[in-house]
């Protein structure tokens, strides 16, 4: 087996890219922890999610080679995430609509609720 042989299939990532991605991921982890100490009101969640999406995209594109892969594989993953979002969006729309009909704090079998 030759030392610097190249595979017939797949894509080889340069080490510099791998480390650059890790560096960015670690920095973004620090950022997401740091911003959680500040209060941006209703944007807190969206900032945290935005950073998470950015980090996830880096992992997908580089660590998981999606940038160099067949486009259909990317479609599959995007489709699955889109379905999750669709599921959450519709269900959330409905539950927030009917939430006022629910009795606040109703949980007869939970003994630890404040009276």
């Amino acid at each position, binding site marked *: 087996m030759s030392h610097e042989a190249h595979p017939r299939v797949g894509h080889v990532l340069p080490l510099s890219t791998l480390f650059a991605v890790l560096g960015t991921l670690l920095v973004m982890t620090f950022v997401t922890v740091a911003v959680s100490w500040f209060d941006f009101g209703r944007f807190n969640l969206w900032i945290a999610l935005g950073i998470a999406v950015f980090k996830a995209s880096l992992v997908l594109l580089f660590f998981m080679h999606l940038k160099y892969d067949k486009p259909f594989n990317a479609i599959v993953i995007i489709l699955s995430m889109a379905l999750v979002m669709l599921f959450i969006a519709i269900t959330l729309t409905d539950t927030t609509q009917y939430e006022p009909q629910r009795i606040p704090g*109703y*949980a007869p079998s939970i003994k630890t609720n404040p009276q």
Partner: protein
Amino acid sequence: MLSQFIGTGSNFWLPRQGSTSAAGVDFLFNAVTSISIVFFVLITVVLFYFVYKYRARPGHKAQASAVHNQTLEITWTVIPLLIVVWIFWEGFTGFLNLQTPPQNAYEVQVLGQKWKWLFTYPNGVVDDNLHVPPDEPVRLVMTSQDVLHSLYIPDFRIKRDVVPGRYEREWFQALEPGEYQIFCAEYCGTSHSAMLSMVIVHKSRPEFEKWLADAGNFLDKLPPEKLWEGGQKLYNQRGCKQCHSIDGNPGIGPSFKGIWGHTQPLKGGAQVTVEENYVRESILNPQAKIVAGYEPVMPTYQGRLKDKEITAIIAYLKTLE
């Protein structure tokens, strides 16, 4: 002849129209059925005609014909589309009507439990059947004590699931006095099919009021030796049984079994004998004396139980040995 298929009485497809909403629902049902029959007949006739005309037989061969036709495809896409858009719109507006009770509706509280319905009226009366005045809208505010149920009145064309932990609403206005069937339509276990009640639409508002007043004073009609039976009914209907068992098992509160005349240890070390005054106090001012080992969670029944009713409950307690 036609009234066999459409009309206000019970017919080939639908039960009688008992509420103000029923006619609208039936109109749409009949319209969709008619559209369905037209399409079904069309498809079937063409199908049988082709199967006969182009049947395989000696000397017969398939003939060439177009394998697609844009105009035809678009036609049979657009026509059904227009029809379903209309059906959707009618269903939507009808639903808005079913969903929105009028402001002045008479309100009845409904509790679903395995496997009966309990209807509570504004004056505190609880009954197994739904009594309503005629000619006015009635709103039901419903919840369940255990699992999902669904209050369904076919003659009124209304149905709504009854969900524990939340309040659901449905409404109707009956067209004429009489009795109408209530079903539970959401599977709820062993006696799901026996969870039946009736809607009783009274002949007039005064008659309904009279029934309600009588129901509120039902104890007056019982002979003294049967008073405990009234107490049993109150025990089942007014929320005693949710916390106090009659089989000796401690619930949220102490069991009623054999409690009469018994001496109970109280929180803080004192003791009390279960007799008339203690029971009366516990119902009207439950926080006054708490039995050791239980939490002070019972609500007061001050104003919700009459003196006579408390006497009946006491009579019932005496029978639980």
